[in-house]
C-alpha cells in the first residue's frame, strides 16, 4: 500500500523554487532516508506531506487522502523542533496533549519508557537538557502509534550514545511495521538506518534507490596515501576531489575521492609518485552525496567533509 505520494509537485516561495516537479512515493514498511544540503527542499517536502503547506501545482497524497484533511493525518506522526516545546508544560502533559489527538495512543508510561524519560515526567520542558528535549520530540512522533513517522533531523545535536539510543528506538518502531521517513545532516545516520535513500538537491530528486545502489551509482572510491608535501594529486586521471590531511612523518596524508580508482593508481605508479601507506575503500554516502550535488551544478553544503571526519 502506498503511504505517501507526490506527483509532479512544485512549490515556490517568492523567487525560490523549493520543489521543482518532484514525484516520489513511499510504500508501507519502508525506511527512507531523505538526504540533501540545507535549502535542498527536504523540509518543504515534509511540510507538504504533513499538511502544513499546499503545493503550487501537483498532487500530494497521504494514505490516499489530502494531507490537509485532519482525517488523513490520523496515521501520521511528526517531530516538533526540540527548541519549540512549550516551556511551561511538563513532559507528561506534552505527551498527553499529543496522545489525545489519536484514537489509540500509547499509554504515557510506555512512551516515556521507550525513550528513557520516565524520571522526567513531572519536569517542565523548559528545564530539560538538549538531549532530553530531543528524545521527547521524537517520542511525540510515536505517541499516536502512527503508521507513518516523519522525522526531520531527529538526532541533530545529540552525543553519540544518545543518538544510538534513539536509533534503536526507531529501529524497533520500524520493526513493528511502521513506515519511517527521515532527513538528516548526519549521513552516518542515514547509512545506519535507511534501506532506501532519496537524494534531493536544488528542489529536485537527484537519486532514489537502495542505499547500496546510491553508493554504487557514483562508484566513488576513497583512496588514502602519504606523499611528500610538494606532490600535487589534483591533475591525475581518475581523481575527483583531493583533501589534504595532517602531516605524517616526512609527508602529508591525503584523501582522494576517485571516480576511477584503477586509473588513479595506475597513474601514480606510471608517474613514479613517491607514495606510501596506500589504503582504499568504498566512499561513504556523504561522499557520494557531495559528488551528486556538485555534479548537478548545485552548491555543495559547506560542512559535509568535516562532519564525515567527526
Amino acid at each position, binding site marked *: 500500500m502506498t503511504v505517501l505520494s507526490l506527483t509532479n509537485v512544485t512549490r515556490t*516561495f517568492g523567487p*525560490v523554487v*523549493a520543489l521543482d516537479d518532484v514525484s516520489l512515493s513511499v510504500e508501507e514498511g519502508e525506511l527512507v532516508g531523505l538526504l540533501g544540503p540545507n535549502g535542498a527542499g527536504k523540509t*518543504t517536502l515534509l*511540510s507538504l506531506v*504533513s*499538511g*502544513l*503547506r*499546499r503545493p503550487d501545482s501537483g498532487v500530494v497524497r497521504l*494514505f*490516499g*487522502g489530502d494531507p490537509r*484533511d*485532519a*482525517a*488523513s*493525518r*490520523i*496515521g*501520521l506522526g*511528526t*517531530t*516538533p*523542533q526540540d*527548541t*519549540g*516545546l*512549550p516551556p*511551561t*508544560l511538563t513532559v507528561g*502533559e506534552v505527551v498527553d*496533549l*499529543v496522545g*489525545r*489527538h*489519536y*484514537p489509540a495512543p500509547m499509554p504515557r508510561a510506555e512512551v516515556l519508557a521507550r525513550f528513557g524519560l520516565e524520571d522526567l515526567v513531572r519536569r*517542565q520542558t523548559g528545564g530539560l537538557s538538549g538531549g532530553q528535549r530531543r528524545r521527547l520530540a521524537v517520542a*511525540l512522533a510515536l505517541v*499516536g502509534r502512527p*503508521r507513518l513517522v516523519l522525522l526531520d533531523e531527529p538526532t541533530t545535536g545529540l552525543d553519540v550514545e544518545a543518538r544510538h539510543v534513539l536509533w534503536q528506538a526507531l529501529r524497533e518502531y520500524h520493526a513493528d511495521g511502521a513506515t519511517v521517513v527521515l532527513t538528516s545532516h548526519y549521513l552516518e545516520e542515514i547509512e545506519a538506518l535507511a534501506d532506501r535513500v532519496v537524494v534531493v538537491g536544488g528542489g529536485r530528486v537527484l537519486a532514489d534507490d537502495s542505499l547500496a545502489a546510491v553508493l554504487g551509482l557514483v562508484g566513488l572510491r576513497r583512496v588514502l596515501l602519504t606523499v611528500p608535501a610538494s606532490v600535487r594529486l589534483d591533475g591525475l586521471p581518475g581523481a575527483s576531489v583531493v583533501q589534504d590531511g595532517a602531516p605524517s612523518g616526512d609527508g602529508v596524508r591525503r584523501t582522494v575521492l576517485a571516480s576511477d580508482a584503477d586509473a588513479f593508481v595506475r597513474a601514480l605508479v606510471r608517474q613514479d609518485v613517491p607514495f606510501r601507506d596506500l589504503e582504499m575503500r568504498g566512499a561513504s554516502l556523504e561522499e557520494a552525496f557531495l559528488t551528486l550535488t556538485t555534479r548537478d551544478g548545485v552548491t555543495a553544503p559547506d560542512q559535509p567533509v568535516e562532519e564525515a571526519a567527526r
Partner: protein
Amino acid sequence: MSTLTVRPRPFWTLAVVHARFQFVETIRIPIAVLGNLLFPALALLFFVVPQRAVADDPLAATAAVAQLGTFAVMSTCLFSFGVGVSEDRAMPFDPFLRTLPAGAGPRLAGRVINGVVWSYFALVPLVVIGWLLTAATITPVRALAAFVMVPVVAVPFLLLGLAIGYRLTSKAAIAVVQATLFPLAFAGGLFLPPEMFPTWLDAISKLLPSRAARDLAVQAVTGDPAYAGALVVILAWTALFAALAVLAYRRDEGRRFH
C-alpha cells in the same frame, strides 16, 4: 486498521483538551493575565470610587462596574488571545500541532473556551472593589444574567483577537490590538458613559461591538434596557469576526520560508 474507517477524535473532546492545556500554560506565567486584571481595577479605584456622586448611587456605580468589566473582558481577549496567538505562531511547536489529526475548529474552540474562563477571572477584582467600596448592588437573578452575558461579550473580541493573531506577526499584532482596543473602548462608552456623548458620536457608537457589549452588560446588571438592536449588532460582529478568524487560520502556513 484502515484509515478510511478511523475518524479524528470528536470535536468537543479535542476542544476541551486544547482549552485545558492552554489554561495550564497561561496559569504558569500568570503575570501576563494579572496585567490585564490590574488596569480596569485601578481605573475603578482611582476614577470611580473617589467620585462619590457616582460611587454612592447604586445604579450609576453598578453601571460603572459593568462598563469597566466589559473593558476588562475586551482587553483580556484581545491581548492574551490575539497577541498570544501571534506569539505562539512564532514558536516551532505551533506548526507541529498543526500536523496532528485535528482541524482548525477544535484549536480555535479551545482558545475561545480558555478566553471565556480568563474573562471571568478578569472580573473578580472589579466585583470585589465595587462591592466593598461603592454602592453597586446586584440581585442573584441579575448576577446570573451577568454570568451568562460574559461569553456574549467575550466571544466577538476573542475572535477579533484570533483574526489579528493569525494574520500578523506578534509585533504588528500588539500595535494593531492597541490601536483597536482603546478607540473601540472609548467610542463604546467604556471609559465615559455614552450619556455624555454628543449625538453624532452616540449614533456611531451604537454600531460598534464595544457599545453593544457595554449596553448589554449594563442591562444585565441593572435592568436598564440596552438600545434596540444591541443584540443584533453584537451578533453581526461576532459572525464577521468568526469568519475572519477562520479565514486567517486557514491562510496561515506558519512562519515564512527563508
